[in-house]
């Protein structure tokens, strides 16, 4: 049986990986992927916690989390397509006309 | 603290505040017809003056206790009440406000730029000033205290002269910073009082009962004192005044010297001293020395000014220093002298600013070097300029002397050294005033040989002020009578 601590540690590592992916990449797509990884880490903690506490709430949350992630990705990709058509670039730092 | 009379009498005091506000609103509504706004503003100020004169006539007998007292619940949750009270001191200051405001309106008769807005701001300023001199609830006082800054800010920033923005922002922020510190002190006092007595209220009478540790009391007193010191202004905090004066339009300047400086002193008398008696006692020597340095520092600085408006700003600081010296002496005659001097200074310096504005309209300059020989250009104006300069110089028989001599006589009883040094200050006052008079009135004619002399409207403005200066100088009795009761009460630490 995987102990609860190990699951948490792994999920934490997953989360941090996602975060570094978000921070290091320039492309918007890669940032979105990073976010997805962070969210997966979170749902993993939910599942582990619900197993630990013997409750179904965590799993319900994990399922809903997937739904929310899907919705978000849909909107995000729509935005990415919209931006590609306008500026022919997806580098996040190109969009810096507003500053100061 | 008994209400003045059992039967609910006509709410004069609320009317005093609401009338100018109503006038201001009407001015805004009439923004199409500028001419109508002028007459409307004049009518409002005249009505307010009428009311104050009526109050002065029938309540000016100097019996102690509140002459008029009105009270109504406002924000029960925080114990804030709409309480207004009139005693001897506020009666005089209200009278001065109404009088100077009417002069300000008359002086802005030829204003062409955005007239409705100008007059509505003036009337809002009058309403807030009335509020300050009448409010007895600390939060109500604070509300009027900060709102007063807004109309003056706009008056300076829109109708001012060259460096108006700098002066307007500096004026507003400087006073605001002080009043914010006062707000914190006010809330802390309110909380301490609430914990001790269970009733959370901002009423001045109750808050005076809170017993504070000496360290707490001194800190809170300094909080209040900072706000009032900036407003009075006492020396280290006075640098906003010359800028605000030189850049403000004439109506603004009259209000600034005549009234806004007095709100600081009134705040000291009404709130700071009664709320923190022990802290006040131990702080009086410092206050006295600061006032003394103020007198000399401002007089010396005034001597080197070339812009006559800036010169009078410094002269106001010097006069106000003498007023605060009188208060710091904590002696009955000195206090009555201070309040009389406040009145006299309001009128004489107000008149001088009117004259400066008239000179500027005719010669187009305020620089001492470019002025001269006014007596041959416009004898009547020069005569009045000399008359009011002598008044503010402290020539006996004119208004300022009556106040000054009372302050000096009273201060000598308790602090002989201060009074002696203050008398020496009179020489420096004479020095810069005579330099000014020599630069403006005497000397060879510079510029046009003859200038258009005073028009009937200008005479209508200046004559009552001259009469008042003479009246205050020769027979100040009717103005001193209301003070006897009020001053005794405040100095005894109680409330009328």
């Amino acid at each position, binding site marked *: 049986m995987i102990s609860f601590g190990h699951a948490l540690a792994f999920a934490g590592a997953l989360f941090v990986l996602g975060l570094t992916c978000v921070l290091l990449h320039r492309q918007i797509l890669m940032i979105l992927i990073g976010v997805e990884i962070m969210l997966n880490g979170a749902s993993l903690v939910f599942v582990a916690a619900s197993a630990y506490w013997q409750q179904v709430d965590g799993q319900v949350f994990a399922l809903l989390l997937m739904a929310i992630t899907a919705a*978000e990705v849909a909107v995000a990709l729509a935005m990415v397509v919209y931006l590609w058509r306008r500026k022919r670039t997806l580098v996040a730092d190109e969009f810096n006309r507003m500053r100061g | 603290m008994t209400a003045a009379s059992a039967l609910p009498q006509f709410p004069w005091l609320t009317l005093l505040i609401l009338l100018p506000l109503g006038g201001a609103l009407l001015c805004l509504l009439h923004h199409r017809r500028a001419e109508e706004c002028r007459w409307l503003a004049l009518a409002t100020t005249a009505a307010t003056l009428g009311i104050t004169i009526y109050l002065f006539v029938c309540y000016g007998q100097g019996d102690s206790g509140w002459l008029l007292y009105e009270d109504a619940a406002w924000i029960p949750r925080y114990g804030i009440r709409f309480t207004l009270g009139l005693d001897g001191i506020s009666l005089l200051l209200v009278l001065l406000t109404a009088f100077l405001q009417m002069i300000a309106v008359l002086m802005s008769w030829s204003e062409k730029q955005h007239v409705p807005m100008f007059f509505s701001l003036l009337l809002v300023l009058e309403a807030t000033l009335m509020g300050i001199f009448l409010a007895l609830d600390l939060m109500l006082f604070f509300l009027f205290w900060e709102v007063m800054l807004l109309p003056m800010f706009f008056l300076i920033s*829109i109708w001012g002269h060259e460096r108006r923005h700098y002066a307007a922002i500096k004026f507003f922020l400087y006073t605001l910073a002080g009043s914010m*510190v006062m707000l*914190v002190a006010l809330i802390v006092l309110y909380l301490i009082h609430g914990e001790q007595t269970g009733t959370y209220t901002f009423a001045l009478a109750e808050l005076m009962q809170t017993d504070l540790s000496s360290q707490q009391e001194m800190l809170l007193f300094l909080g209040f004192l900072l706000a009032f010191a900036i407003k009075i202004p006492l020396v280290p905090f006075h640098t906003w005044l010359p800028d605000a004066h030189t850049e403000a339009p004439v109506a603004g300047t009259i209000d600034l010297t005549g009234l806004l400086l007095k709100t600081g002193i009134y705040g000291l008398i009404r709130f700071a001293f009664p709320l923190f008696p022990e802290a006040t006692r131990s702080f009086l020597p410092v206050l006295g020395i600061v006032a003394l340095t103020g007198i000399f520092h401002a007089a010396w600085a005034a001597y080197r000014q070339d812009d006559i408006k800036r010169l009078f700003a410094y002269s106001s600081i010097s006069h106000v220093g003498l007023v605060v010296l009188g208060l710091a002496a904590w002696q009955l005659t000195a206090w009555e002298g201070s309040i009389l001097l406040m009145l006299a200074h309001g009128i004489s310096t107000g008149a001088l600013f009117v004259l400066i504005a008239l000179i500027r309209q005719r010669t187009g300059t305020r620089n001492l070097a470019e002025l001269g020989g006014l007596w041959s250009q416009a004898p009547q104006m020069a005569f009045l300029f000399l008359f009011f300069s002598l008044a503010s110089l402290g020539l006996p028989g004119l208004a300022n002397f009556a106040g000054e001599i009372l302050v000096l006589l009273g201060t000598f009883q308790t602090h002989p050294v201060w009074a002696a040094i203050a008398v020496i200050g009179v020489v420096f006052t004479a020095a810069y005033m005579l330099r000014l008079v020599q630069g403006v009135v005497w000397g060879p004619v510079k510029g046009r040989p003859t200038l258009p002399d005073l028009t009937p409207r200008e005479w209508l403005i200046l004559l009552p002020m001259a009469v008042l200066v003479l009246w205050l100088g020769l027979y100040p009795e009717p103005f001193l009578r209301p003070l006897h009761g009020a001053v005794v009460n405040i100095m005894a630490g109680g409330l009328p």
Partner: protein
Amino acid sequence: MSLPDLLALLPILILVFGGTVILMAGAWYREPLPLIAGGIVTALLGAVAAGLVQPPVVEIAGLFSAGAYARFFTILWSLLAAAGLMAAARYIIENSIGAGEYVSLVLYAAAGMALLSSATHLLALFLALETFTLAFYILIACNRRCTLAAEAGIKYLLMSAVSTGFLAFGIALIYASSGTLSLPEAVIKLSAATGELHAWGLLGWGMVLIAVGFKISLVPFHLWTPDVYQGTPAPVGGLLATGSKGAVVAVLVGMLAVSGPVWHGLTDLLWLLAALTMLVGAFSALGQKNLKRLLAYSSVTHMGTLLVGLLCQTSAGLTATTFYLVIYVITSLGAFVIIASLADERGEPMEFDQWRGLGYLHPVRCGVLALLLLSLAGLPATAGFMAKFVIFEAALQSGYLGLVLIGVLSSVISFAFYLRVTMLLFEPDESVCRWHTGTASEHAVIAVCTSAVLLLGLFPGILFDLIGRILP
């Protein structure tokens, strides 16, 4: 979901179904005005329903509360939606944005905010938060012609995606440490638990705090605010500035009201955040040359002050925060709607030299804008002062003198830059050009906001009693 639950959820159901109906109708019937009118009616209906219908049951499936507190905020957000739609009417027509989509998105957002305000369960909190965030993703970038809107959209999207990640992970940790998702219990367990789980719980709440920090733009996470406010069209900006921040604060206040003072572990972190937010918000607004960015930074300062209110965790503190929140919502909405009403084909007046001397061409609206800005700064006789006073009073009562002094400093600085704007409006300048005169609906919203600010400034007793009744 028994009938009483449904009855309790009636106002939100009205909003959601109304939105969907309008969305569908929009597909066939392209005429924008009736759709917008329908949207406004739905929003008002939702508000009336929340006001009048007395829900039989207080708790809805353990997720949402339908108590007086929740209904108060439901009314507030639906009114906000109605106002937002009225303000956006002319914008939608002139920029030919899909009226159906816009209206439905606004209604969904309103529903999301109402749900969030009444959430008593972490899951409900998460779902509600996501609903209106998604709605805003699209609303911000809905105007295809404006490039800045797209840039603002992507910035908001990515930043809030990351914050959702933090939120989810935070809630997961809280669930992991406390075993329960219900908000009040989780909070009580936080202070009760000890040992290792307590540590995870603390980290969880910290990460939730980060997500909240992003949403209400606390300092380290506030960098998106100026760009997004500048980029979004003013009507959407009005909703974003008021609604999204207000709902998050509302849920925190609701939680603290139920659980009482519980954040012992977090207080010094919150103290740092509040102080930093107030100061950085005020100082960065000093050098601003663009009104909307200035409003963004000023909203950062206001959120700092709200955090001070939350920090007190006393009933006085919560009342103060709610009062401050309502006033902030009304004033910011008014400011944004004024900017929206002035917008015309050249876009919106943003740069300071576009505003110079505008007070003489549009005296009423600029006068009102000056009043609203001064109310934001905290001028007495306007509601802003009463709000600040109440917060300071609560903070001093719970002994946060340091924070109050920082609050005083930031409000003095905020007076500085607000005064510069008001002075700008009334500075005589020949080169100024006339902007749009604004439609009746915009004027209505502005009038309502201004009268509310003045009325609550002079007679705040009304709102105090109302809040006294709704807070448990």
